[in-house]
């Protein structure tokens, strides 16, 4: 029964878990490690899955905590390793985006404050409800709404600037 729940609830969520991790750590290798760690962790407690109401938001919260742990650990990691990681960080997904002339959009999203970027991702890409986002990010629903509105406004402003002057910033 618990294995069935794991296969039905968690495995389909793994793509979203990976995208969410990637939006936080910006490094495909690290994001993959995060998701693999989380899947192992969830597998170990699969007997409790029946008690969980919103598996999606719950799994995302586990991903979020693991990402924060990873980022904290990285802060103290060997500098050389960090340099290597920076140099190898060239995911195919980003290449596809760059070649698609959407660089301006990536630039705008990169300038968003972390919280806004995170909330924006969960709403626009993962299509979570305000309540689910609030639970995942430990925010209030109104905080979530405000952050999404601000993020969208920045994107819209950048679009209007490009239309008017041909540049985003």
């Amino acid at each position, binding site marked *: 029964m618990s294995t069935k729940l794991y296969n039905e609830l968690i495995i389909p969520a*793994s*793509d979203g878990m990976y*995208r969410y991790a990637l939006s936080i750590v910006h490094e495909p290798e690290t994001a993959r490690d995060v998701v693999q760690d989380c899947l192992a962790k969830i597998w170990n407690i699969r007997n409790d899955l029946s008690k969980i109401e919103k598996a999606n938001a719950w799994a995302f919260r586990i991903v979020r905590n693991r990402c924060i742990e990873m980022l904290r650990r990285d802060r103290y990691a060997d500098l050389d390793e960090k340099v290597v990681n920076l140099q*190898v960080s060239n995911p195919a997904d980003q290449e*596809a985006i760059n070649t698609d002339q959407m660089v301006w959009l990536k630039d705008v999203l990169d300038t968003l404050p972390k919280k806004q970027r995170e909330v924006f991702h969960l709403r626009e890409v993962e299509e979570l409800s305000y309540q689910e986002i609030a639970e995942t990010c430990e925010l209030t629903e109104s905080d979530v709404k405000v952050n999404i509105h601000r993020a969208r406004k920045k994107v819209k402003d950048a*679009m209007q600037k490009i239309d008017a002057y041909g540049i985003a910033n």
Partner: protein
Amino acid sequence: MESPIEQLIEKYWNGETTLEEEKRVKAHFKTNPALSNESDYFRFLKKEQEIKFDPKVKKNSRRTWLSAAATVAVGLTTAALVLQESNKDPFAIEDPEKALEETRRALMMIGSGLNEGQSYALELTKINKAKEELKEESEPL
């Protein structure tokens, strides 16, 4: 007068849409792709949604090259060391002190062997002498 979809798009940018309405906006841009920044934006979101989790660890090319280079380097070093060792006499002694000691021991061994041989030779001479004396004495008879 704005069309219903235009009103919905405006609502979207104002952050007032529900999830369902947002899905309608996204579907609109999917079926009506345009060469506009707005259209690019929704295409970008769709692209983001298509990113999949691949549990297989893809080795990045740089790391693969590094490990290949490291393997070759280790192999070459091992080969060089093995060749160097095989050219050497396995009984050769590198330390001159030790070599001197070994030579001295070998010479001592030869010396003691020679001395032992000499003592037997002396005994043989004695026997031969006695034999000669006996021979001389027996001849006149």
